[in-house]
């Protein structure tokens, strides 16, 4: 398969691994931010290829995992209304809220549909003027432009039966939080390539300057990740802290400015609650007041639904890279993708689910953990 197989070539992978082994002289902890990168690392068993000195920990970049409980409860409440068609990306349907999830809501009679794009929801709205069509706008900067576009388009067309339930989160504020935490062990980051395709990497330059930490913008194929790891190792071993771009075939320094402009037209920055981590200031998007008519929270009056996050499972620690999924006593026993106890077990991009699906055979069985369960980095 062109443009894919090139980035999975075993010989090239081996030569990158050899180069990494040659460069590493002491232990380093590296973090990949994005859930898609975690998925690739697990699916290809990349950790097996790396020298023992390198430890990979998995960051908070799984949109499904960090979507807070109250948003899921709002989604369920809206979807259950008789005149609503609720449209979502597939992997949000299984994420448990306080009492139900969207799959169960669908089974109980709600009109819940899976889509690949908010534009499909827009189409449903045009074709079904008698129904209220709501799109579940979750995700990082990657999915935000399409959602902004859908709302912008709906307003332009004067559609009155379309709205979005927004739960957009932003990567740099979460990284800033991790870097500022006293318990931070991460010495180098692989920045999320697709987020940077949209946003560019100037925000990451600021993080590099502020925290003197190497950041490499990385892609999602095995060779992308191996090369990004090599670039980080070189920087660390040479005592450099710079921003570097491994994912040049997709990412430019300033990103996709047309997409950014549309996003800023429709969204504004706001504080967001991250499941497993807690509230982070200025870490997400909400619709601007001019687009209030497209804000499902307001349209359906669910803004008051609140669901205090119960003391989390160790997902708080997993999402910060302080613990590995199999450090958890219920990993793979009481907590599985069929019965997720925490968000990272739900999505295939979640660190726990990726470990469960691909690397369970490598995990020590039920390692006891002595760390406190609830240690949000921001207190």
């Amino acid at each position, binding site marked *: *398969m062109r443009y*894919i197989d090139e980035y*999975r070539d*075993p010989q090239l992978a*081996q030569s990158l691994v050899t180069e990494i082994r040659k460069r590493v002289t002491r232990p380093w902890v590296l973090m990949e931010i994005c859930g*898609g990168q975690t998925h690739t690392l*697990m*699916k*290809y*068993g990349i950790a*097996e*290829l790396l020298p023992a000195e390198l430890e990979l920990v998995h960051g908070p970049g799984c*949109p*499904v995992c960090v979507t807070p*409980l109250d948003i899921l409860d709002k989604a369920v409440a809206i979807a259950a209304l008789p005149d609503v068609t609720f449209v979502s*990306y*597939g*992997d*949000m349907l*299984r994420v*448990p809220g306080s009492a*139900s*999830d969207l*799959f*169960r809501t*669908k*089974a*109980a009679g709600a009109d819940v549909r899976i889509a*690949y794009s908010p534009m499909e929801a827009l189409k449903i709205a045009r074709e079904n003027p008698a129904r209220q069509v709501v799109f579940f706008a*979750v*995700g990082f900067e*990657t*999915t935000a432009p399409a959602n902004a576009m859908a709302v912008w388009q709906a307003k332009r067309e004067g559609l009155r039966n379309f709205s979005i339930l927004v739960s957009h989160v932003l990567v740099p504020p979460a990284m800033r939080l991790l870097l500022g935490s006293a318990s931070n062990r991460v010495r180098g980051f692989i920045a999320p390539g697709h987020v940077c395709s949209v946003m560019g990497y100037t925000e990451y330059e600021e993080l590099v300057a502020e925290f003197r930490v190497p950041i490499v913008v990385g892609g999602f194929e*095995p060779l992308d990740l191996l090369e990004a790891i090599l670039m980080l190792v070189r920087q660390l071993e040479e005592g450099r802290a710079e921003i570097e771009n491994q994912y040049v075939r997709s990412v430019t320094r300033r990103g996709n400015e047309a997409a950014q402009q549309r996003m800023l037209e429709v969204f504004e920055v706001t504080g967001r609650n991250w*499941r497993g981590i807690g509230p982070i200031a200025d870490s997400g998007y909400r619709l601007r007041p001019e687009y209030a008519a497209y804000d499902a929270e307001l349209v359906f009056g669910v803004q008051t639904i609140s669901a205090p*996050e*119960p*003391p*989390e*499972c160790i*997902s708080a620690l997993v999402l910060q890279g302080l613990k590995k999924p199999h450090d958890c*006593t*219920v990993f793979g026993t*009481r*907590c599985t*993708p*069929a*019965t*997720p*106890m*925490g968000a990272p077990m739900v*999505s*295939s*991009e979640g660190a726990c689910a990726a470990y469960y*699906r*691909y*690397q*369970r*055979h490598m995990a020590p069985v039920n390692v006891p953990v002595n760390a406190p*369960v609830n240690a949000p980095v921001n207190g």
Partner: protein
Amino acid sequence: MADPFAFTCPVPLPAKDRILLGHGSGGTLSADLLREVFLPLFHSPILNKLDDQAVVEVNGTRLAFTTDSFVVKPILFRGGDIGSLAVHGTVNDLAMGGATPLFLSVGFILEEGLEMETLRRVTASMARAAESVPVEIVTGDTKVVERGGADRLFINTAGIGVVPEGVRLSPALVRPGDRVLLSGYLGDHGIAILAEREGIQFDTELASDSAPLHGLVAEMLKASREIRCMRDPTRGGLASTLNEIAARAGVGVEIDEGAVPIREAVRGACEMLGLDPLYVANEGKLVAFAAPGAAEALLEAMRRHPLGRDAAMIGTVTGAHPGLVLLRTALGTTRMVDMLAGDQLPRIC
């Protein structure tokens, strides 16, 4: 703090109060349904074996008996339709037990308002498919439900066949050292259906692999009687089938990623949609477990048959890690191939 591991966090929601779509996926939710609802109430030792077909002995003749329902959407697709699929699916369930298919029944559930032309077309396709096996459709039933009570047209078929003398196929016979053979390209059916449904176009034509496998099985049984067991990896795909056999036989299975035949179009569609071809449905493929000494001869026999032309040896059975299926990646690392809970869900990004 009390016991830090007395979790109160995101409620594990047991899937017990209602039927979810995932209960029909062939994954672990389907298995739960069997274990918790059907098997304890029907308590049949034959049913409990959970083979694709029941083998029952009547006056010294071993009969294979099976049933399957077809709810595919769309009902007409590239490479077949719900009618031919309903014949092939049941014939294949018989064939996986080594049986020669003899008779089929058919039950139609029709939605009020279905175009007569569609029913004629599907029925003619069933007739052609049955004739080409050959297998005779000897009994049937028709029910019509109100508009909205079904989605156009559902079909149930049941089938009876005879298992030849000396043929015994069962996961219980699988041993460490056995080889795993696959009859051809994976995922054609599932991706062809999805493409039809989602309006995805390919550079090359991709069609469902729907086909009756009894002829291929007969050739394989001629080549060797050291086949331990066979399955057609339909819903849930190769991954679910291998997991079922690993669990039932109490063995580990190791497959080699590079050896599993997957077409470019299927790989491409899976990349684009965030799916794994190992979990995508097939309707004209079989996976066979065979004694190591017989594997080469079997592979030759499979490749001589048109439906096994692209057959490949994809892995081995091991005594290590019983119940688990591992995959050797092209990079030389290993990962698990797990059973999914429900259907594969497209990822967000």
